[in-house]
């Protein structure tokens, strides 16, 4: 039973083809990596899955735990898709900079809140109980990521590594089944990358996640991904096990250029 199925997904920006014929059959709990040179269309695929763009052609079907059967994602709004159970982080951190660490996580609970606007305006009904619950949930989540001491700090004041961690915590607050990580190791040294590898494995188990990862750091990719898809200029040029991809001539050519391989 696939969790996510992308079929012949193609996307054009005006006349430029950013992604062509992307296919993916994702089983639950997999950890799949998407790699390729810059500009290959990797983040575009994340944007297509999460609804930031509507794919020009093709389907993306998701087996959401919240809805019976499969749901077509193309054409849905980003917030609807997130509510179905897909969350993500960003290449360039997109935290709510002028808001506190706690608020960043609380906001991600938006769709789970059980009171109506009227109850909010007058502070009646379920308002107080739900606010309690969300504050507690958020602090619990922050504690899991060892960020609870920073709860009232502005997120922009956090050191880079902690900001990245917060972004993941925030994404997990939406209770996803599928987590998309966009270059989580950007700007990290080899030591930090080792920790990140353990961290990703851990959250996969702890939060019962399926993960798709975009990354340039080969150490991380080869270390934890179960299988890879390699993109170049929007097209999938190779897919398979990491150890096979490492030796694939087309992949080497894409990264290093023709002369380096030949």
């Amino acid at each position, binding site marked *: 039973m696939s969790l996510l199925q992308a079929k012949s997904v193609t996307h054009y920006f005006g006349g430029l083809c950013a992604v062509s014929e992307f296919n993916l059959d994702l089983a639950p709990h997999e950890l799949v990596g998407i790699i390729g040179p810059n500009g290959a269309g990797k983040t575009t695929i994340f944007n297509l899955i*999460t609804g*930031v763009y509507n794919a020009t052609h093709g389907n993306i079907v998701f087996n959401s735990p919240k809805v019976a059967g499969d749901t077509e994602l193309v054409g849905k*709004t*980003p*917030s609807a898709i*997130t*509510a179905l159970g897909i*969350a*993500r982080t*960003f290449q360039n951190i*997109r*935290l*709510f*900079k*002028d*808001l506190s660490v*706690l*608020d960043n996580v*609380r*906001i*991600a*609970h*938006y*769709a*789970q*809140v059980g*009171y109506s*606007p009227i109850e*909010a*305006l*007058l*502070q009646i009904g379920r*308002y107080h109980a*739900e*606010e*309690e619950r*969300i*504050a*507690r949930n958020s*602090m619990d989540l922050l*504690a899991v990521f*060892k960020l*609870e*001491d920073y*709860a*009232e700090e502005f997120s922009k004041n956090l050191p880079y590594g902690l900001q990245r961690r917060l972004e993941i915590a*925030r*994404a997990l*607050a*939406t209770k996803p089944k599928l987590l998309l990580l966009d270059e989580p190791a950007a700007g990290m040294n080899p030591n930090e990358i080792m920790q990140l590898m353990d961290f990703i494995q851990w959250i996969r188990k702890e939060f019962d996640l399926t993960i798709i990862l975009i990354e340039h750091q080969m150490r991380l990719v080869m270390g934890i991904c179960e299988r890879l898809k390699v993109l170049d200029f929007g097209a999938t040029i190779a897919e398979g096990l990491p150890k096979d991809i490492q030796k694939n001539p087309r992949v080497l050519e894409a990264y290093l250029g023709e002369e380096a391989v030949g």
Partner: protein
Amino acid sequence: MARRWVLPVLLAVGFLLSFAIPQFGLLDLYVQLIIMYVGINIILTTSLNLVNGYMGEFSLGHAGFMAVGAYIASVLTVRVFPASMAVWLFPVAILAGGAAAALVGLVVAIPSFKTRGDYLAIVTLAFLMIVKSVIENIDALGGPRGFLGMDKLTTLPWVFIWTVLSVWVIRNLVYSNFGRGVLSIREDEIASDLMSVNTQQVKLIAFVTSSFFAGVAGGLFAHVLQFINPRVFDIIKTTDILIMVYLGGIGSIAGSILGGTIYTVLLEVLRPLGVWRMVLMPLVLVLLMIYRPRGIMGMREFRWFVPVRDLIASKLWRQAKQKEVGDVPSAS
């Protein structure tokens, strides 16, 4: 918290004063009038701050919502309600004015789903001009000559009640789930969408609430001035409200109260300067913008307005955790 009783006590005192002052003539009638205008302006400023300050949009249509509220409320008290009942039905008229303005706010919210920034400014500006033109063309409303006949139903107690109610409701919204949604839209709308925030729903709520209270202010305004015409609700009026928002501080309830009060009072105090009053005021504004671009209380809040839970969230959490574990000091 010991301090938490101060605010309700102050409000109770204020409420009593609002009756006592007109009853016993404790203050000059002129001063009472100014206080009423301060209240009305606070409602206008706080409601606009919700959309322009907290949500980071640029809506230029606030005077239009005010106009809708003013006219609906006035038509009700002058033409619809029996004269003897007008005093008792005054709150109904105000609510009706607010509801009508809210309905119009619903319509204006829809373009905000797709456009932001300057384009939304145009849409709201065009809407303002359209409201003005529509009123001018309806003879039953007096057209360009205006509408009169309202009794002076707006009294100090009413202004006090409506001002406190407006500020309280808007503050509740800000510190709720929807208010956090509003803030997240200002910070990063795309990320907000992707973190499950239904941005369309949030924008609707913000616009409708904002325009409702602008309509309430309009109704109160009409019944203290006792005469309204379309020219009162033009771009200059919107500009006045914008200035109050930015003067007091964007994204701040206390800022809105401050801005509304300072602007109204200052303009009165400077009246002897004649036309030079409006030469000095903008200079002060420009200087303020240069040195405090977000306004006096920009994005900061008066502690007593912030819900306790938000102020000490982590402390409360730690206390709850300690109770759970049975007074064992937490490891981290």
